[in-house]
């Protein structure tokens, strides 16, 4: 199959590749770019494990062709740590609040959560639950993921995080 040359910015760096028109973005990221933090859980846009950020929007990269991302600005989980290499507020929140177990949904969940907090810096619990409802987690039951996002929101907003009573 004929291949197409594409270029895009991924985590701030210009990358290029030669792909078939049918190559999914998630495969381009995982196979061509060898960045395996973005996971595949269903290939049908339901689970959200492959969520990345494209030009300021959360996108499930299993349902976008790589050629459609030509010229885009893409952020993946590999671009989420602080510049000094330390865990960002969300990554820290997930660890502190035990917002992950097997870790497979985590990259997609964090990518969605960071965009959610940009859309709505101080979301309520209901807004967080609705905001991450495109991402499935099989391990945590979401309760601690909600807390992790609340923790990060508080940290980003410079306010004290208070865990809601059980």
């Amino acid at each position: 199959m004929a291949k197409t040359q594409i270029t895009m910015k991924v985590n701030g760096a210009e990358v290029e590749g030669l792909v078939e028109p049918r190559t999914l973005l998630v495969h381009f990221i995982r196979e061509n770019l060898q960045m395996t933090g973005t996971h595949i859980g269903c290939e049908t846009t339901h689970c959200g494990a492959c969520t990345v950020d494209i030009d300021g929007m959360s996108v499930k990269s299993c349902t976008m062709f790589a050629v459609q991302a030509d010229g885009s600005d893409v952020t993946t989980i590999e671009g989420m740590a602080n510049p000094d290499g330390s865990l960002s507020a969300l990554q820290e929140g997930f660890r502190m609040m035990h917002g992950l177990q097997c870790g497979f949904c985590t990259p997609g969940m964090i990518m969605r959560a960071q965009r959610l907090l940009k859309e709505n810096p101080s979301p309520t619990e209901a807004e967080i639950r609705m905001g991450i409802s495109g991402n499935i987690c099989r391990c945590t039951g979401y309760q601690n993921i909600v807390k992790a996002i609340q923790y990060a929101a508080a940290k980003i907003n410079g306010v004290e995080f208070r865990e809601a009573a059980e």
Partner: protein
Amino acid sequence: MNDMTPTREQRTAALEGLGCKRKRVEDIRFTQGKGNYVDDVKLPGMLHGDFVRSPHAHARVKSIDDSEALKVPGVLAVITAETLKTVNLAWMPTLAGDVQMVLADGKVLFQNQEVAFVVATDRYAADDGINKVKVEYEPLPPLIDPFKAMDADAPVLREDLAGKTTGAHGPRKHHNHIFEWTVGDKELTDAAFKKAEVTIKEMISYHRTHPSPLETCQCVCSFDKIKGELTIWGTFQAPHVIRTVVALIAKLPEQKIHVISPDIGGGFGNKVGAYPGYICAAVASIVTGKPVKWVEDRIENLTATSFARDYHMTTEIAATKQGKVTGLRVHVLADHGAFDACADPSKWPAGFFNIVTGSYDFPTAHLAVDGIYTNKAPGGVAYRCSFRVTEAAYCIERAMDILAQKLGMDPAELRLKNFIRPEQFPYHSALGWEYDSGDYGTAMRKAMETVKYAELRKEQEALRAAFKRGETREIMGIGVSFFTEIVGAGPSKNCDILGIAMFDSCEIRMHPTGAGIARMGTKSQGQGHETTWAQIIATEIGIPADNIMVEEGNTDTAPYGLGTYGSRSTPVAGAAIAMAARKIKAKAQMIAAYKLEVHEDDLEWDIDGFRVKGLPEKFMSMKDICWAAYNSVPPGMEPGLEAVSYYDPPNMTYPFGAYICVMTIDVDTGVYKVRRFYALDDCGTRINPMIIEGQVHGGLTEAFAIAMGQEIRYDAEGNVVTGSFMDFFMPTAVETPHWETDFTVTPSPHHPIGAKGVGESPNVGGVPAFSNAVNDAFSFLGSTHIQMPHDFWRNWQAAKNLGVFEAA
């Protein structure tokens, strides 16, 4: 002592040992996308394999034509049963003593069965190849309804078993019969029913569902022709068992097989068994001399690898008018699908279903299980439960509610009346188990007080009256569940897998600087073993958990173990860790005695080192002992500080808990709302409360999914109608209720640290709590039992059948 000397509390806290809410070490890599899962394994020249699958539930395979497929660019080989026959691998043994086709041999027996394996340079080319393989089928009548499986004129599914009147577990009664398993005293139980004042009988079904971890089953097989060595990276919950199975069926020397389970994206029982994908990828690598990757997609996962449940349980209880139970009789029709690939310890064809007497003091009981074949996917895995324990807990907890309803008693009161009492432990159940410890009444009463149970019942009564007056269209249900699990398989006297006793193991090596590595026979799939195992060691030998690295999943370096499933890791491997640590500590004591120039008996353990009794200033820390172990051990002692323990548990452990669910249902739409869910768990000694709480949240969410909608459903032709996340209920953050957790602590008397295991309890106890809430809601309208799953549509159907639905 000066101010800088740490206090005892500070020294204990620095260890981050038992009871500490230690943050997980795994999270550093997982939150940065630096986990290493199977699909992340990429080897030079690696090929991809993918399956041609059957569209039919039951058909004869007339021919397979791969000529066009082999012309597709990138396609290198198409493997069929005929290819596999040349290496005697067209069929493989199952864990349950049956055999299973690796690739369709003459016929197909379930939809999406593996028919041919296309090997290509990448996954896209493999898919192109699949589309070009021409398979000619002759459809046969499918057998879908388990209740028709043993009809005289039922289609013959397993032609390979023709004339075999005996299976792995005794006589077969019919061509679609697999086994009959009976336990208990039939005569005594029948007699109890004859003289019973009150009896109930109900057919309680636990529908077919699927564990569906977010990462599907996958592997990479790499055969080195020069060395004759096969390396397999796979999503294996039990890597050592896989290595032994491969050695036995592929006839490769076991030392030349290297099995590696890297990070695993959830298991829930799905990743215990051996699947055709593993065999085909291994054969493809041996044939091509290149590494071959197989990654199933979600639809393949839901439809072909390992369903769970599908138990149809006719349940009877005998009781007195006062509500004292006198007998239990259960018959199970167990739908195992096309091959008996049930993942149970070998001698247990229905797992530990004989825990079905639950938390109650039944003087007698009898159980019979008939396993049968149907045209459905094989499996029967323990989806987040010990073997068939969730089925048993659902059966008895639903039946107790039905009995309470018949007696006009409160279901919690009926449970309190029949609990095994604390003084009866160790308790011998009518169906053969020895329960290790429990204090059920305390747990039940604590749960009832916390949720203000009596007030809830009053509220329900008022709401029911209002409903009858036509003032509301909402009904309220209070679901009570009190479960006893049986986990920690298991003692070698009654548990083995393919002849290997179900022990588990730990090897600890302490390094000179007071750090160490622990290697285990278990394999975490999200449970956080790297965090919690180090906590056990920290408390046992006084070395901070941060200084202990835990490694699992590599059969070359880890001691042999039976893996992680059935909540067995803490009861079995957790014990092995403590025992290995105690061996380290015993040697350390000898070294300390030598260095402090006293007799060993003059030393006492003090948090993180040994102290001379009566001379508090004479102390040697474990860190210093580690150093000494490498340069100044007593004369005659070998240097070094290492230990291995293989732990064969004396008994299972029996975690228990009291769960209460409060739910409202709109009878005109069937829409339910979980108002409150309270879960009290008693898992004995608590290693890491943060992780326990996380496990309970996750297990409850899976229980919620199963009870309220998650189902693998087949139509009459044998098509799976719930084969993707569009149709298979996966709760999101929006649907998932808020969970309240609580606990009591009743340590296991036989476990070295008193721990019992917890990961699966919430699934076992949660399902009946939800189902009892729905059934309790409808009960005042004359309903006795409504089958799961209780999705909106079925709730609406129930309302309609009870005559309370009013069309707008």
